[in-house]
């Protein structure tokens, strides 16, 4: 509704959000792969930091 509910001044903002959303949907698989990789690395780092204490 954000895209359609405002006056004309919202066009640039709505258009930018739409473009980002479209790109995200197109590259969804790659984005999720990258997100998983980053999450895995982050979790691995946390696990490494916890180990010496154990």
């Amino acid at each position, binding site marked *: 509704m954000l895209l359609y509910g405002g006056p*004309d001044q919202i066009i640039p903002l709505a258009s930018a959000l739409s473009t980002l959303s479209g790109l995200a949907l197109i590259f969804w698989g790659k984005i999720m792969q990258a997100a998983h990789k980053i999450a895995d690395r982050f979790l691995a780092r946390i696990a490494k930091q916890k180990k010496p204490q154990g």
Partner: protein
Amino acid sequence: MTKATQQTDRKSKSAPSARDVLALAAWLGVVTGLVEADLLLAFQRLHWQPFSIAQWSVSLEIVWIAIVFDLLLFVAVGVTLVGLRHWFPPLMLVRWSLFLFVWLACFDWLAISGRLHASAVLILAAGLASVAMRWFSRREPSILRFVRRSLPWAVSTALLAPVGIEGGLRLKERIATAQLSAVPPGSPNILVIVVDTLRADHLSAYGYARATSPNLDRIARQGVLFENAYAASSWTLPSHASLLTGRYQYEYGPAGDYNDGRYPSLAQVLRADGYRTGAFSANTLFFCRAFGFGRGFLHFEDYYSSWTDMASRTLYGRKFIQYSRVPLGFNDFPGRKKASEVNREFLRWVDRAPGKHFFAFLNYFDGHRPYTPPQPYRSRFANSKNPGGIINEFTFPPQTPRDLTPQQLQSERDAYDGAVAYVDAHIGELFSDLEARGLAGNTLIVITSDHGEEFGDHGLLSHGNSLYRQEVQVPLIFWWPGKVPAGVRLGSPVTNVGLPATIMDALARSGQSTFPGPSLAQLWETSGTASDWPEPLAELARMPYDPLNRRPFAHGGIKSLITPRWQYIKNEKGEELYDWQQDPEELHNLAATPEGQTVDRDLLVRLRRIVGNSFRREEVRGQSQMKEPSLPGFSRTTASQQVR
């Protein structure tokens, strides 16, 4: 058959094929059209569309039109893709076809609101199509099975929609017509003809040097002609609203408020009286159902008079026009309705119920820019073969006389006069057709215009810019053999806003107070000597469509009062005063002269008494959100009722 053969057979039947591409095309085409139509109607209703989209208004028929056109478009794309099947394996062909069709559908729906940049729509639609393709690849057999099974339903929708909608509308009209009460005996038929954009001083009946209007001249000699009639505004929407309600703009609002039903329209009153009411409009920009003008009309023909007009109202039709217009050198309204078509629609409607009293309202659009009437009219008054066509609706920012050479400006005038002659010829044919049907003797016919046109006068082109005489003086002719006197010419300044009251008076219903008076008939009954005749008022709200602030309305709403000698114009910049009797071109502003200042003070008081503080609120609803500054000289006094 062995089990292995059965499995192979089942697999080959469910394997994607080129036929599936066409099935997907048809299925998605129908769905796209259906959703597109709903969105067009909904956004129009909510006034969510910017003018660039809203100017191509739609009505209920768009449901079947969008379905049929999108179905044809998608199937055409599908056939093209099938033609490429030799380069793609069937599975890839089907998946990428689905991607393309979903992309087309999403682009269609997202572009309708007009509130996203085109590139954003393209990318978001591609994103959604990607999601659809990934989803399809995981459920392919079941989706294809569903599409194959439901395809007959989808195609049936496409075939039955036009029948259902058009048939339903016809049936509704027939039922409503059958329920009309009887019109009082002795009542005439009523025909109001509005020639859009017709300047009075370009008619030979009004002294123009060129013989542009032999038929109107003859009609005027057989009826009453008002030499100084004025429209309520200088553009279509408020002017037509005033013609149908008998109210001025300061009473009902600048443009979009006509729709709120505060004041009854002439069509509603006459329909309640038993008249079969019909409107036939060629100005589908503004005099159309989308702007509320359908109130009271049992039958309203505006859009969809041709396949081109229908296509131009679908989303892809609009996009095609938007992007191909310049390369193809096309600068006219797609599917523009000509006077001949308006006449045909009207007479076809009359012939469907012969003997039934009618009130019909016709709008001819041929004089509106671009001035491109058909030959031989286009070149009738010109030295060149194809004059006109330069001043058009689609130029932005709007053109000014400085953009044209003197020869080009003259060429535009020549083409405009050709358009006037074209309309005149078809008005003559209409009268002949009415006579042939035995209707002429018992029909009150009124011929007028909604506004005039400028050709470089005051540094302006076209209309809707100002309230100078060139834009607001209009023809006004009443014709009814035996009832309206013949050969009468009246010079008192009058407004065609008095039309509803005059018609009710002609029907001997002047006792009704539905429409403010007085009836213009009083003038021809008293030979134009009626005293204290109310002075015509013209108004123009501030428009948001002048980015360079070059036109008079850019400085705020304009009001004008016309007396038997003066035209007084008041706007944010100041005031103007013209002695229009001595200076009909209004070239000499007398506001600053000693006499002019005295007259200005008096006329400002009279104007303020009529319109009060309505300047403050008057801006045509559109893309601009700017507030209009207050107008000096106006206080927050309440408007008193103008006695007309």
